[in-house]
């Protein structure tokens, strides 16, 4: 087995009594796009910030490009690129100037204009940061994460707050980065984003990984089909693995009795339902 780009084993981190990360394990292969998917407060950002070297873990083994991020220091920071969940940049500098500023921090930076082109900001290269739209600022964040020519990229909720068109553009960009052979750890609370971009996804809830696999595998664990109708003034929902048989029985009985099943529908669960089912299941304490 080749060396992992990133490996996490039984990672734990508490803030006071709150266990933000409660025993997480995963492994990312070189060149892979890995998605950490979960709702706000699930522990995604805490996990990523431990991997980026911002936080100390309470326990567990972590290696980033073969190095413990707590000890990696400058040499490790040469090899990683970071997009934080929220961070601003010097408002009065231009896009090109900020790229040059960051490029100067690295021993072997990429060509600044090439990076600006890669993130699609050519036309804004001489515009000041404060004049950029939200989506353009996020692309600038991406450009700065790339300018050091990193092997591994951390993207913490790179499209939160984007309109649908801007998200599509950002997705194209992440795919392009993947094409460059970069290893990417992406966090998101959008299921479709994880599905679109990630080779493998870990669904995280309350500091634990509740499911891990390829997007196809996650859909493969789809819950059952629901048959819904209206009867005697109330909604009836039947969940089943055998919709054909159940539906035949149901309609047979109703037809024989001369009744109409009001608002009859057969619903196949969406990805969203799969995801919600995963993150709600067993959490108990979240229901009122």
């Amino acid at each position, binding site marked *: 087995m080749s060396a992992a780009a990133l490996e996490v084993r039984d990672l734990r981190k508490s803030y006071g009594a709150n266990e933000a990360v409660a025993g997480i394990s995963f492994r990312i292969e070189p060149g892979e796009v890995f998605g950490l998917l979960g709702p706000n407060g699930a522990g995604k950002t805490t996990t990523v910030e431990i991997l*980026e070297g911002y936080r100390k873990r309470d326990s567990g083994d972590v290696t980033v490009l073969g190095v413990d991020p707590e000890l990696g220091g400058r040499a490790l920071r*040469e090899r990683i690129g970071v997009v*934080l969940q929220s*961070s601003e940049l010097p408002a009065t500098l231009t896009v090109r100037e900020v790229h040059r500023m960051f490029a100067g921090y690295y021993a072997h930076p990429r060509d600044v204009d090439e990076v600006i082109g890669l993130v699609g900001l050519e036309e804004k290269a001489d515009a000041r940061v404060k004049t950029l739209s939200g989506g353009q600022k996020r692309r600038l964040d991406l450009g700065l994460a790339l300018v050091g020519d990193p092997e591994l990229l951390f993207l913490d909720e790179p499209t939160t707050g984007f309109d649908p068109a801007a998200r599509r553009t950002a997705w194209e960009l992440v795919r392009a980065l993947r094409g460059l052979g970069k290893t990417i750890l992406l966090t998101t609370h959008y299921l479709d984003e994880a599905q679109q971009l990630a080779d493998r996804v870990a669904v995280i809830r309350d500091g634990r990984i509740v499911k891990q696999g390829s997007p196809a595998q996650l859909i493969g664990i789809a819950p059952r089909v629901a048959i819904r109708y209206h009867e005697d003034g109330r909604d009836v929902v039947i969940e089943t693995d055998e919709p054909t048989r159940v539906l035949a029985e149901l309609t047979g009985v109703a037809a024989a009795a001369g009744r109409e099943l009001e608002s009859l529908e057969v619903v196949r669960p969406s990805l969203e339902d799969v995801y919600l089912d995963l993150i709600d299941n067993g959490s108990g304490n979240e229901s009122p």
Partner: protein
Amino acid sequence: MRIFVHELRNQQRMFWRNRESAVFVFIFPPLLFLLLGAVYSDRIEGFRAADVLIVGLVGYGCANTALAGLAITLVIRREAGILKRIRATPLPATTYLTSVLGSTLIVFVLQMLLTIALGVVLYGAKGPENPLGMVAAALLGVACFAGLGFGATALIRSAEGSSAVVNLIVLPMAFLSGSFGPTRRYPDVLQWLADVLPLTYLIDLMNDIYLRGGSFVDHPKEIAIVAAWGLVGVAIAWRRFGWEPRER
């Protein structure tokens, strides 16, 4: 060294591009000098008023640039997440902070030269009797107030409050220490307060060097007190300085 020069350039570009910092930090003390110079036209304690005011406002400028300006800038950058983002790059923390310090020194030295030039051209000031001594005093002053500026950065929680907090410190201090005119007729209580403040001793030191041509090294007491204040600031920063936003 290459990366220090690179970052020093970045810091300078950001300083001069930002109209608020360029006006408030760089222009404001020389502007006050112009106003006060128009009011005091005679002699102050046997010296030309313009020369006495130059020393006072250079002292104020030092505190305003290195304490107030530096702290406001760093708090704003910290709360915006800029400092946190930079910590994820290979730029060493010490290189970043020394380039901030170096940039502050450049701004203050230019400001000092501008104030003296204005005094000489407009108000007939003589200029410093001991120019090299003034350079030494400027270095000491920037070191002291930048130390306090790093300490203040560590203590201030929000970007919104930073300007109010530092001006609440710097402006009364400048008033008590004699930046805006002689303090001999101040009530005793204010003079006792002034006797504790670093700016009082920096201005005393600069007065002797600038007005009487005194030597920098002849003032171990003033140097020690000013340096001690700087170390207090550095000690606070050492314990409390953070790179991540406090209010998020």
